[in-house]
């Protein structure tokens, strides 16, 4: 009829397969009726319904029909394409058809599972099947696009997960850039004294790994550095890394530590020292820091405030101090990126009724980790805030900020175990001390964890099952003077309870890093509602993200203990090693392309692409899509005012036909004719 309906109706032979999925679909949708009904669509050559299409027998049906009935298109009405699109594309290919001449109708997740109304579900299934048929007839054969994988990898975050991933890949012979924001790698694990349940000394098991990472020929360690920009796509990332100036010339520095000794400035160490210890203006976080070069803190350095002092420069034997050192921007090309940026301890100051920051003898768990550590500010002695008095009674509060609607609803997995560890350490350091652990549910899920809990019971730790309501110095009863009074319920005794103690340790849970949102946007790895990075699939792909080539490992993906972080570090490394091993990766051919002869050069599309995959040819005055960079979102296709950009596999004709097909039961005869 009208002149621009150029797409006529190619006469295709479509095979339709309606899956029962056991009772998942057949329980609500009348699969027989749908497959029968599909037969009177002019394009349909054969239409079947079958128990389990994803089973090998189901797939064989497709292959056989293609060969015997000469099908040119395949439609499978079953589950979500995110589940079995790959399976059925391969079946279509084995049958001899290009895998993209196939379309799925999601009648399970979007159909049978979403309603109990059998009639409506069947009607909706017919619509989705009809839409798929009307769409698939316009599908074109497409070939996946090979993309070379750059064998070098970037690991962001030098905690235990990042170190493990870097070492695994480096040992496999691949080059790794390990980027760490702080002056040294080690992460939170370096701050911990003992690890549960074996009471291994954390530094003893961590530092060898740090040294190995620091000296590995395949690892370029970029410490005191942050990623500023990420471009490109899987196999071909271009990353801008800002190597912050530490005012120390790394080549000349021998890590002798004299500069640290001579520096007159002493400030509270909010970073590694968790606010309990002190450090100099030029410092190494801890003796075993890797790399061993110190970092100059410009905010507190006298030279940078007043221009005087320069003590470190004077005493440095190898003249390695350079106050004028500039930040360096490095352009690093890598094939894959593993984010292992870790967590942040929940800030107990957010719970005023626990008094952290107001009541002297209330300590956070990291503060206690530093205190109990032999190289810590108190040389490992457990003392009150006055730095001298040993507490006779210590309360350890579990679930601070966790499992609580006002703060974090999730459980942080590790606090019960490290609270048990603290209880043991207090007994060990102060044999006579009374220790009270306030818990809601004792969670000891790991290997040897429950045994550790039983050991604590034998050591005479008092376990009070109840959420602590408040910690305050307001004494009512005799014997409460000068003490911290823990007001809580005791659900096992079924009554309120007040307990005066000398010292309180708040076992806070794990928060996502404060800048997780920005980091997520930088690397195109989204964050979930809890603020941690979202994995591609909670069960089957815990270390992959929605973006190909970007992986996550460790606490940045959610609260977890050291063994799990190490396991995820290894998993991410093996996922990357797999890609490197393959050498090339076949990318979905969903790309945009411009019909240049009809392009008017209006340049509307130029600002549509976040991947700079559209360039403007100045002489010919036409725009062009760089296929390699295009990620196939289709935003430019929808914006092009003369309709000369089309998106493979999501062409205008395909989607418009899908719309017509889906409205089969509300379309008038007139539309049907002109569709």
């Amino acid at each position, binding site marked *: 009829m009208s002149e621009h309906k150029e797409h006529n109706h190619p006469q295709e032979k479509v095979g339709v397969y309606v899956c029962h999925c056991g009772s998942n679909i057949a329980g609500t949708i009348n699969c027989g009726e749908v497959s029968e009904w599909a037969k009177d669509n002019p394009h349909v050559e054969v239409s079947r319904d079958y128990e389990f299409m994803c089973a090998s027998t189901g797939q064989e049906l497709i292959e056989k029909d293609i060969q015997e009935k000469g099908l040119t298109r395949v439609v499978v009405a079953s589950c979500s394409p995110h589940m079995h699109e790959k399976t059925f594309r391969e079946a279509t290919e084995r049958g001899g058809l290009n895998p993209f001449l196939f379309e799925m109708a999601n009648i399970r997740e979007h159909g049978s599972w979403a309603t109990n109304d059998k009639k409506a579900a069947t009607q909706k299934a017919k619509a989705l099947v009809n839409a798929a048929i009307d769409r698939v007839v316009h599908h074109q054969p497409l070939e996946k696009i090979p993309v070379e994988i750059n064998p070098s990898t970037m690991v962001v975050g030098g905690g235990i997960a990042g170190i493990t991933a870097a070492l695994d890949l480096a040992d496999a012979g691949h080059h790794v850039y390990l980027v760490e924001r702080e002056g040294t790698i080690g992460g939170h694990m370096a701050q911990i004294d003992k690890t549960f349940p074996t009471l291994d000394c954390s530094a003893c098991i961590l530092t060898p790994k740090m040294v190995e990472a620091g000296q590995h020929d395949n690892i370029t360690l970029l410490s005191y550095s942050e990623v500023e920009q990420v471009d490109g796509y899987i196999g071909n990332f271009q990353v801008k890394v800002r190597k912050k100036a530490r005012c120390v010339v790394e080549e000349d520095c021998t890590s002798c530590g004299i500069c640290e000794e001579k520096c007159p400035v*002493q400030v*509270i160490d909010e970073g590694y020292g968790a606010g*309990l210890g002190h450090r100099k203006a030029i410092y190494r976080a801890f003796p075993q820091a890797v790399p061993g070069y110190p970092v100059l803190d410009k905010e507190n350095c006298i030279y940078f405030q007043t221009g005087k002092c320069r003590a470190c420069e004077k005493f440095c034997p190898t003249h390695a101090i350079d106050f004028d050192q500039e930040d360096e921007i490095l352009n690093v090309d890598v094939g894959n990126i593993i984010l292992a940026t870790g967590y942040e301890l929940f800030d107990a*100051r957010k719970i005023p*009724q626990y008094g952290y920051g107001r009541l002297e003898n209330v300590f956070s768990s990291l503060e206690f980790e530093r205190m109990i550590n032999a190289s810590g500010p108190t040389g490992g002695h457990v003392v009150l805030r*006055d730095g001298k008095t040993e507490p006779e009674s210590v309360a350890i509060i579990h679930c601070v900020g966790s499992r609580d609607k006002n703060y974090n609803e999730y459980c942080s997995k590790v606090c019960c175990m490290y609270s048990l560890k603290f209880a043991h350490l207090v007994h060990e350091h102060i044999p006579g001390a009374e220790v009270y652990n306030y818990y809601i549910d004792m969670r000891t899920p790991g290997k040897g964890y429950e045994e550790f809990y039983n050991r604590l019971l034998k050591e005479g730790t008092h376990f009070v099952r109840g959420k602590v309501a*408040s910690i305050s110095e*307001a*004494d009512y009863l005799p014997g409460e003077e000068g003490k911290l009074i823990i007001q809580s319920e005791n659900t096992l005794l079924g009554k309120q309870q007040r307990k005066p103690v000398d010292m309180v340790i708040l076992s806070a849970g794990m928060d996502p890093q404060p800048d997780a949102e920005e980091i997520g946007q930088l690397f195109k790895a989204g964050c979930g509602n809890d603020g941690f990075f979202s994995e591609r699939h909670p069960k089957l792909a815990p270390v992959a993200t929605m973006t190909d080539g970007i992986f996550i490992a460790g606490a940045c993906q959610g609260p977890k203990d050291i063994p799990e972080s190490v396991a995820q570090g290894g998993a991410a490394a093996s996922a990357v090693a797999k890609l490197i091993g393959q050498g090339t990766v076949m990318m979905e051919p969903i790309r945009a392309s411009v019909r240049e002869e009809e392009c008017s050069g209006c340049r509307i599309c130029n600002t549509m692409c976040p991947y700079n995959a559209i360039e403007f040819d100045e002489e010919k005055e036409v725009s062009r899509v760089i296929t390699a960079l295009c990620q196939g979102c289709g935003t430019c296709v929808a914006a092009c005012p003369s309709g000369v950009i089309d998106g493979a596999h999501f062409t205008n004709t395909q989607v418009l036909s899908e719309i017509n097909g889906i409205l089969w039961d509300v379309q008038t005869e007139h539309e049907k004719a002109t569709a």
Partner: protein
Amino acid sequence: MKFSYYPGCSLERNARSYHQSTMAIAEPLGLEFDEVEDWNCCGATEYFAINKIPAYALVSRNLALAAGQNGSRELVAPCSACYINLKKTDHALAESPELRSKIDQALEAGDLAYQPGSLNVQHLLETIVKEVGYEAVEEQVTKPLYNLRVAPYYGCMVPRPSAMESFDDPEHPMSMDKLFETLGAIVVDFPLKAQCCGGHMTQISEETALEMIRRLLKNADDYGADMIATVCPMCQLNMDAYQDAVNQHFGTDYNIPVVYFTQLIGLAFGISPKELGFGSELISADAALAKVTEEPPKEKRRRRVKKNAGLPMPVMPEEG
């Protein structure tokens, strides 16, 4: 800024000074109160415990009158009990249609009507802190209360208005603390500032009430407070009138005056104590007021890290 004003019964009798001081500071704070005509009692804490429907009806009448007066949409109640009852009733009417239909019938009898949600019920402290703001208060301060150690006492209803959102932290409110800092006073951050004063427990079981009041007095005293400032006539009454009963019962000798926060604001604005109703309190505040000095206390020099000064405290966000 214009506000509908609901004084409540206490402000006409035992809490006369609360009303006087509120009126005195209204003009400098730029607050214009027009009282709800023919308001009736709000049932305080007792009536809701005895019979809910008539209690809700009683309070709804005040809401209907205030809304009908089409003055400002904000209804201010200085007394915590009135504030809680007005806010709770407005919330309940919005939440449950059956209650609403019963109350509508009651209101129709006095040809009144009330659409839930049409009023924004505020406590006076909330109005001063949120609507006026600390800067505006500071501008009016002419005689700062230097050297006066004040313990701000919030009680339990203002920080925790049952199901509804509180304008301050429910466990550890700080709005009145900041207000007194603005007035130049030394604020005593005593832990029980949001614990219950016993309310009408003095009528039901005096011994329990006396123990609750003793705890508050002991805590304020332990922290060296010269006086306690409160936002509710019932809390004032319990701590002021029953102080010597506590002393007799427990053999203690507390002598801590209990005043209204509006009286202290008035003092800092240079208004005379008489005009602010000072003198009506049973434990006289004169001795405490005498401690106010002209110059601010010597600023402690924050020395750098002292030798063996123990372990550093974590920095609180505001200070840090």
